[in-house]
């Protein structure tokens, strides 16, 4: 009898230990699942579209499995030169937007901080608009030597300037007033919008088309050279994240506490602000203003796996990329053969979510 009881105890103990170890590994499990989601989203997006070219046929073609005539040259062209760049760009932009949101929230110590809401994207947009309209009038060698990087560099400068102004206005003695930050963000976004509006009067027809494309946001302009710039900036930024994760965790306890724990708070903040500006800038320069990814993705992940930045940052990159690629598939197919700007899709999904977030955390804004 005693042995039986013991055995049962042992089994429940094993079961509870298994549950506990499963719970402890939840972040790793979620990251693994998200990696699969990224592949799935890419597959769906390659298949979805106005043309019925099948991604599986192309995959078979790439890996030399299918017969040569299984795929028409037209379909191959559609997939390789139109859909594939969009998918790659969607993954990179989505990852950049979600990660820069998470990093900005870590630095401002608030889940409502987001490059889109706080005007950083608008500032980056102004930088890019200035380059489009006035870049040609600057001395050509300078603009020429930057080439494809000219636009991202301009957007980066605009984003960096906005972030610095924002931080200077809303943070005093290491305490950030979220109300001041959001209000300053509104003012900075309005100012940037007005400046972009003024620029439209100086723009010629082609420049006007480029400017309109930005205000909406789209992955439609995906080309391999743009992707190269995006990939370089993103990979450099992502490479720094593992070194920042512990510091961002400590920063959640306040700047003084983080400093007491040996975190060099000032350099962490400086690196983070440059990183947010770089990732936001390059995203805005290649695909325009795509809102709400940076606020929704980190928030959902904090609910799922907790706020530890060691897991939150890579998970945000994966989920942000997957979601944006899916949103792009929707944007391309719902009104096919025309397409919606992707910013409309992310706003339709993200804005109600944001309102729900405000409703739940109203006390946060009563500062």
């Amino acid at each position, binding site marked *: 009898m005693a042995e039986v009881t013991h055995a049962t105890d042992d089994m429940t103990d094993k079961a509870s230990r298994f549950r506990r170890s499963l719970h402890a590994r939840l972040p790793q499990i979620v990251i693994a699942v998200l990696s699969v989601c990224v592949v799935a989203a890419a597959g769906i997006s390659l298949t979805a579209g106005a043309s019925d070219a099948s991604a599986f046929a192309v995959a078979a073609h790439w890996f030399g499995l299918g017969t040569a005539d299984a795929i028409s040259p037209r379909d191959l062209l559609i997939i390789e030169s139109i859909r594939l760049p969009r998918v790659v760009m969607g993954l990179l932009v989505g990852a950049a937007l979600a990660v820069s949101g998470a990093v900005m929230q870590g630095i401002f110590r608030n889940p409502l901080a987001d490059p889109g809401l706080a005007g950083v994207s608008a500032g980056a947009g102004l930088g890019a608009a200035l380059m489009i309209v006035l870049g040609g009038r600057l001395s050509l060698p300078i603009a020429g030597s930057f080439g494809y990087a000219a636009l991202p560099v301009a957007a980066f400068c605009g984003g960096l300037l906005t972030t610095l102004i924002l931080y200077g206005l809303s943070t005093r003695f290491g305490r950030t007033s979220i109300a001041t930050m959001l209000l300053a963000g509104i003012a900075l976004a309005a100012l940037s919008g007005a400046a972009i509006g003024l620029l439209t009067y100086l723009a010629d027809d082609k420049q006007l088309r480029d400017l309109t494309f930005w205000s909406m946001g789209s992955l439609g302009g995906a080309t391999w050279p743009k992707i190269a710039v995006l990939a370089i900036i993103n990979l450099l930024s992502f490479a720094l994240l593992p070194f920042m994760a512990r510091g961002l*965790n400590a920063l959640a306890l306040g700047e003084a506490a983080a400093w007491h724990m040996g975190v060099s708070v000032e350099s962490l903040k400086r690196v983070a602000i440059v990183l947010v500006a770089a990732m936001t800038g390059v995203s805005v320069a290649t695909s325009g203003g795509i809102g709400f990814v940076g606020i929704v993705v980190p928030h959902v992940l904090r609910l799922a796996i907790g706020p530890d930045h060691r897991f939150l940052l890579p998970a945000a990159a994966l989920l942000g990329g997957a979601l944006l690629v899916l949103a792009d598939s929707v944007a391309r197919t719902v009104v096919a053969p025309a397409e919606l700007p992707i910013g409309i899709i992310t706003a339709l999904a993200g804005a109600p979510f944001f309102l729900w977030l405000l409703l739940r955390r109203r006390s946060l804004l009563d500062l």
Partner: protein
Amino acid sequence: MSTISANGIVVRYGARTILNGVDFTARAGEVTIIAGPNGSGKSTLIKAVSGEIAASGAMSMNGHDMRAMKGWQLAAQRAVLAQETSVAFPFTVAEVVNLGVSAGAARVERPALRIEMALERVGLKGFGSRRIHTLSGGERQRAQLARVLCQIWEPVSDEGPRWLIMDEPVASLDIRHQISMMELARDYARAGGGVIAVMHDLNLSAMYGDRIVLMKAGAVAASGAPDAVLQAGRLRDVFDCPLHPNIAPGKGVFVLPQSVLGAPMPALAAE
């Protein structure tokens, strides 16, 4: 040189002088209490001593010039418990305490075990998986104490004694946990570490302090053993309030406000 010492500390915010030439020494193996009225510069002194704010004057820890030490070097040797620590995101108690473990100088073989021990030490056994914002104010303060303890777990390192620096650690605690907090501080000091704490409660200070530094208007009014510092005339002068220190045989000095003994407070008497 197992001390934290500061000589001629001056701190100014704009035109206001918060600390005006403070000399301060805390010895390892002792609990040093900083007491004094509101606005006398206690918290500023502790911030200067922990290296958090810039101050002019000389400061050393275990014989090393503190200004030459990097943030991580200081973090390996001293930990700081603030009056209140707000946590921005819904971290679990164990995750918060783990921040202290990974901030410490020594590599910990089994961090989960260390966290559990620290939580048990502050009376929060089993709280590890709770989200920290679901705890009460006093429980949150004890969770932060567990984090701070993990940062300087061994009271003595190869580099000399470690230092536990606390700003009003018992302000949010009930009397039982006030006592256990002070006993923990005393145990840490008896094991060779140093403890510096800002306190308002003069009786707890007298019970657990080896030395009391009494501050008034940005300067040290008196420092020494509790019974030498807590004297009627000096307390009246520093706190601007009639206080009545007594000696309880075998228990040391305790302080009662005058009005409890019958005489009304001067402000009330005037009305």
